[in-house]
């Protein structure tokens, strides 16, 4: 005697995605594409910079993806910069505009932009770590008057892995943005800095007390970038990191994304360094 019930609207499951329409797919590198999506009725995603969504492809599965677009430029759409690396993302890379895919979210805590106002912001992005940081960078640039200096450090392994190239050029061209980038290994066309992201730090001078840092990158990067940030005297309470974990449910239940007693999907994915430095599983 198995009775099943189809849930009624007022007890809708938090696990049920809404169907978003894929408006645009732009190849960025060999592994990354930028997807522009629209929610039903063109309603706003309502995200804050640093939050993520769960993307569903029915029959394949669900994966957490950070939101790459800033709320200030939402225009009823949002962008996801996705590396083809797992089942869901590989399938996404084969999709074309007009396709529908499931979306849940936005989830978690993003960057506390209000608290950052009045301060200089130092961004340190490694590789695909630029994807979530871009949301905050553009938000800050669109509210430029509220911030002091905007310093962007970006590093990738090689020139072919550089993301958002047009936008990087715009940032570099702006007088009110200090933009530095590097690649671990150059090629015949590369004329810029060569070396890991930490080699950019000696090039900048900051007023640590008035600086907030926002960083995202591969796990290996944090340790070294943190040493640089702390080495410049930025307080632990003014350093924010966006962490990656297996955020399967997005709502603090399934357990996969736990970092000691914290849930990356709910307490994060953006954490203040002071709050996680004592957690062995964080970094």
């Amino acid at each position, binding site marked *: *005697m*198995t*009775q*099943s*019930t*189809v*849930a009624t609207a007022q*007890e*809708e*499951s*938090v*696990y*049920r*995605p809404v*169907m978003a329409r894929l408006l645009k797919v732009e190849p960025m590198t060999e592994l990354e594409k930028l997807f522009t999506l629209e929610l039903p009725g063109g309603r706003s995603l309502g995200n804050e910079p640093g939050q993520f969504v769960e993307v569903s492809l*029915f*029959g*394949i*599965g*669900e*994966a957490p993806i950070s939101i790459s677009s800033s709320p200030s430029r939402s225009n009823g759409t949002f962008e996801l910069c996705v*590396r083809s*690396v*797992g*089942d869901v*993302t590989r399938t996404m890379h084969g999709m074309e505009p007009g396709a*529908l895919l*499931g979306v849940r979210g936005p989830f978690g805590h993003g960057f506390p932009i209000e608290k950052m106002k009045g301060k200089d912001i130092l961004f340190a992005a490694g590789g695909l770590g630029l994807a979530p940081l871009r949301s905050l960078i553009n938000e800050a640039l669109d509210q430029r008057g509220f911030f002091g200096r905007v310093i962007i450090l970006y590093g990738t392994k090689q020139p072919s892995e550089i993301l958002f190239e047009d936008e990087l050029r715009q940032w570099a061209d702006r007088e009110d943005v200090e933009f530095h980038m590097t690649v671990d290994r150059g090629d015949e066309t590369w004329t810029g800095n060569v070396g890991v992201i930490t080699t950019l730090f000696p090039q900048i001078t900051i007023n640590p007390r008035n600086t907030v840092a926002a960083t995202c990158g591969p*796990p290996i990067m944090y340790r070294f970038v943190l040493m640089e940030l702390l080495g410049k005297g930025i307080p632990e309470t003014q350093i924010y990191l966006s962490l*990656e*974990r*297996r955020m*399967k*449910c997005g*709502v*603090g*239940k*399934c*357990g*996969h*994304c*736990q*970092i*000691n*007693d914290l849930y990356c999907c*709910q307490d994060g994915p953006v954490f203040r360094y002071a709050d996680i430095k004592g957690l*062995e*599983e964080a970094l």
Partner: protein
Amino acid sequence: MSLWVIDKQAIAPLVTKMMNDYRVVGPLAKGVKFAFGEIEDVADLRLDYDTSILPPKKYLQPQEERMMTFTRSGKPVVETVIDAPPTIILGVHTCDLQGMHVLDEAFSQGFPDAHYLRRRERTLLVGIECLKPCDEHSFCKSMGTLTVSNGYDLHLTDLGDAYAVDVGTEQGAALLNRYGNADNATEIEMQHLNKVLAAKWPRFPYKLEFDAGELSSLMSQAYDSPLWDQLAEICLACGQCTLVCPTCFCFNVYDEVELNLQDGERRRRWDSCQLDEFASVAGDENFRERQAARLRHRFMRKGRYLHEKYGELGCTGCGRCARSCLVDISPVDVFNDLHGARV
């Protein structure tokens, strides 16, 4: 609430009547052990069971369940599905009542989990008082779960020829009214009950060498203990301990597609933080790669993390993880060793 008495002879007809309207489950013999199962013949019901292989949480959070159905053809359609047959669980031990209370907190705090909560809402719990320890692994008395004063709809205590029936909720009272043939407890029966309950306590040993109220703070000091590496040396990382735990609720989500490749279901099933892929992400990063870290994580959840998040310890003292462990890792030993190392 009120106290009733029901003759043991009256249990069979009562359960039979319930079976017309509910899925009725209870402890049944399974080989030399017991397991909760759907009752087909009332004669199979074993309220005198010691412990069950799996806790009855499987009726609130099934090993596998459908969460939604979908069709990919044409305009995709997604429909939430909640399988929640009206269910009565008979003979729940008090440790497991506490386990369900932990799950209630976990699935209702923060984002409510409609699937669990709908099922919980349609489930009635009939507890039974334990009068002797299940076996040497039980440490319910240490964990404060040897008795409970709520969390059940009805609660039975064996008085020999009859059960004393404690009514915990209005739904429980309605159940008794509708199906039962119970009488108000007489003065003599009340005295008998008092004797039975008083006599049970000395039969249960304290297993922890400290008060369970200290467990959370003990665990917060035990993070760097060498014990985790020592245990990881023998731990097989099989995940049995989490499968049999009444308060483990981690799950994985996956899609199943019909042969037509268009229609399918999104499902979830129990997962275990002890398995090596639990914290891995696409691209080969594994955020809890060492078994020592995984084993520690489990004990931290049981002794500290759940307590901090939900206000309830994640261990009920049921002893199932120790009972099922192939290399005899036992929470009593772990907690006592950590405590011993501190003092």
